[in-house]
């Protein structure tokens, strides 16, 4: 679609690196534990209880990791809505990260739900329950998974079209037929890929509105959806930056200049978020509770401090010129933004009675395994398909033409 198919390149490198084996190890460990969970039941592997029916599989794998996976969403907003085409080279790697992030969410939901064989209920209109926030979130996330796969398709098809030796003639044939057609309609899919996350990211916040008597008032507010959507945006940008720098270091590629420029957007977004957060606390009379110095207040301050520090760094031009500072700021914002979501889903959640929750080791390693699987998939995909932005200077004329 929009323009430059020449923006991207296959990252030519060995697939079977030591990092690959480490990730593979954690992936397999995770999958073994998942197998155990399906045989012995959720109680056998987790510390979940009737008081804390949701643990890190929901709080991290779904609520937080889909925010980390909002890079594709955040970039699409900048590129197609704010019309900053210069960021276009970054979109594919952002989309692939998003695809794996959302796949992880989908997989852990299947690990988490107790009666997974009934999941087809979501496709039976007679069972739909539109009052349920979870219904909206589930359907929306499923749809977005499909959208992300379609959005990544061109990269895969291009690879088959440009294949030198004709190993899969049939595939190449179909790729050539589908590609131009997909190219024409892709913009409408891309827009869907902006609409759907706007919907479900805000609804991930709405999800806890109903638990009013259990969620600490520092976090429980009717504007949870608004806070979650803005939160998803700055986490999304931070992840694009993080992912770009991380792959620059891991794959010894030069730093991507666009990323540093992109970081200018973040203070505006976090600024809005912080204002909304404080105005809301003030209106609901919870400011004093937020700074009371007790456990919940400290958790709130941690969230605040991480986000403030990240924002502060990115407000100054000197800092933005240093790749290292931008990288650190991005990490602070990812952790801080994620911390906020943990506060809403677990830390600030206190059911009536004597309950406590801390993830068990198997619970933890299932999550680690799924994340390892996600990174593994990303690393393999970029080595097989044109996803990474083309390094400037290589094929000089091409790159020059593209700008």
């Amino acid at each position: 679609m929009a323009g430059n198919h020449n923006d991207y390149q296959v990252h030519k490198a060995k697939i079977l690196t030591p990092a690959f084996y480490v990730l593979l190890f954690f992936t397999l460990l995770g999958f073994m534990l998942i197998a155990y969970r399906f045989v012995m039941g959720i109680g056998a592997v987790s510390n979940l209880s009737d008081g804390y029916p949701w643990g890190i599989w929901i709080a991290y794998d779904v609520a937080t990791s889909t925010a980390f996976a909002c890079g594709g969403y955040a970039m699409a907003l900048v590129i197609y809505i704010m019309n900053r085409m210069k960021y276009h080279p970054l979109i594919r790697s952002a989309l692939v990260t998003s695809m794996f992030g959302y796949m992880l969410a989908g997989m852990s939901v299947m690990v988490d739900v107790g009666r997974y064989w009934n999941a087809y209920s979501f496709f039976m209109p007679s069972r739909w329950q539109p009052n349920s926030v979870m219904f909206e979130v589930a359907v929306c996330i499923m749809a977005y998974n499909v959208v992300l796969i379609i959005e990544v398709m061109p990269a895969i098809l291009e690879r088959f079209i440009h294949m030198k030796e004709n190993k899969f003639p049939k595939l190449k044939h179909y790729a050539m037929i589908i590609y131009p057609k997909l190219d024409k309609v892709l913009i409408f899919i891309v827009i869907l890929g902006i609409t759907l996350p706007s919907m479900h990211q805000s609804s991930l916040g709405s999800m806890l509105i109903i638990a009013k008597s259990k969620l600490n008032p520092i976090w429980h507010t009717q504007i949870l959806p608004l806070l979650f959507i803005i939160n998803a945006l700055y986490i999304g940008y931070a992840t694009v930056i993080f992912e770009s720098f991380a792959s620059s270091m891991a794959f010894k590629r030069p730093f991507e200049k666009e990323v540093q420029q992109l970081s200018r957007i973040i203070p505006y977004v976090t600024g809005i978020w912080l204002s909304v957060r404080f105005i809301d606390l003030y209106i609901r009379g919870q400011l004093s509770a937020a700074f009371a110095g007790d456990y919940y207040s400290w958790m709130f301050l941690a969230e605040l401090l991480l986000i403030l520090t990240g924002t502060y760094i990115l407000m100054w031009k000197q800092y933005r010129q240093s790749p290292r500072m931008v990288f650190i700021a991005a990490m602070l914002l990812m952790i801080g933004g994620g911390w906020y979501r943990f506060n809403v889903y677990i830390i600030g959640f206190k059911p009536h009675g004597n309950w406590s929750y801390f993830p068990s080791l198997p619970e933890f390693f299932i999550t680690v395994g799924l994340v390892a699987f996600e990174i593994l998939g990303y690393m393999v995909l970029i080595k097989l398909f044109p996803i990474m932005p083309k390094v400037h200077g290589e094929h000089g004329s091409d790159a020059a033409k593209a700008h």
Partner: protein
Amino acid sequence: MMKKTRRDFLKTAAAGGALMLAPLSVQAQQEIKADDEAVGMFYDSTLCVGCKACVSKCKAVNDMAAAPMPGDSDRLWDAPEDLDYRTRNIIKLYKNEEDVNDHAYVKHQCMHCIKPACVSACPVSAMVKEEGTGIVFYDKNICIGCRYCQVACPFNIPKFEWPETFPKIVKCDLCKFTNLKLKNIPACCEVCPTNAVIYGKRKDLLAEAKRRQAANPGKYQKAIYGEFEVGGTNVIYLAGTSFENLGFPKLDHESAALMSEHVQHTVYKGFIAPVALYGFLAFIALKNRKSADQVAHEHEVEHELEVEIQHELEKEKEEKKEGKH
């Protein structure tokens, strides 16, 4: 598609913005009203003698497993510590250390809320409030086991079969499929020897509770638990000691389920806002895409690609032809 007037643009823009801002406009709660036909239970803590006949009868008619005490190697005794997947109904005792006269039994089970959070939360309609009677019941054949009902319930009532490979949710359904169906009365109310828990229409039960309060003002707490909590429940309580002592959470009179639905409906009413947001975004994206030099470049690349593909396809055709001859 591109022929949009400025006014259309503003309209879609406003609607798109509404999707994000809708939660801010949430208004006051509507009132919740109990159905006149709604049935429920009334438990008077001062009449209960703690015999637990209700607990064992509940287990018997609803086919619940025993919950042996820890260390009970014979596994002969049913001694549940709390509600769980084996216990839908439990009797507990509160005792004040300082004041021997201040003690009371209490019975816990699903409150059959008038506006149940569990029903509002369930994504697949596995948790249902029966029309008319107001009984809140559960269908395991539909449930996906997401446990959102557990997160949502302000009383922590739905329980999950954690140790099971194929678990389900467990909670009181007023014996809808068992005793109520057979004998027209829930098992606990049928067997209670002191009439501490009685079954009936909510409005009658509420009137009875108020009558007892009026007849014996010194004996009871002023509040009738369940009259207003979370918008009212069909199971109501009288007690001589404070309800917090009896393990009941202190809850708002408004229903969080209603609040949540209100936010959700404001955002998704008729699906107008999401569709408008889509239209709005598509409008901008298409407009942006057509900025002049981009179009030129786009065509260039598209053309190159089409030529290339055309070329390849023709080559393939020719090869096939040659193969046939």
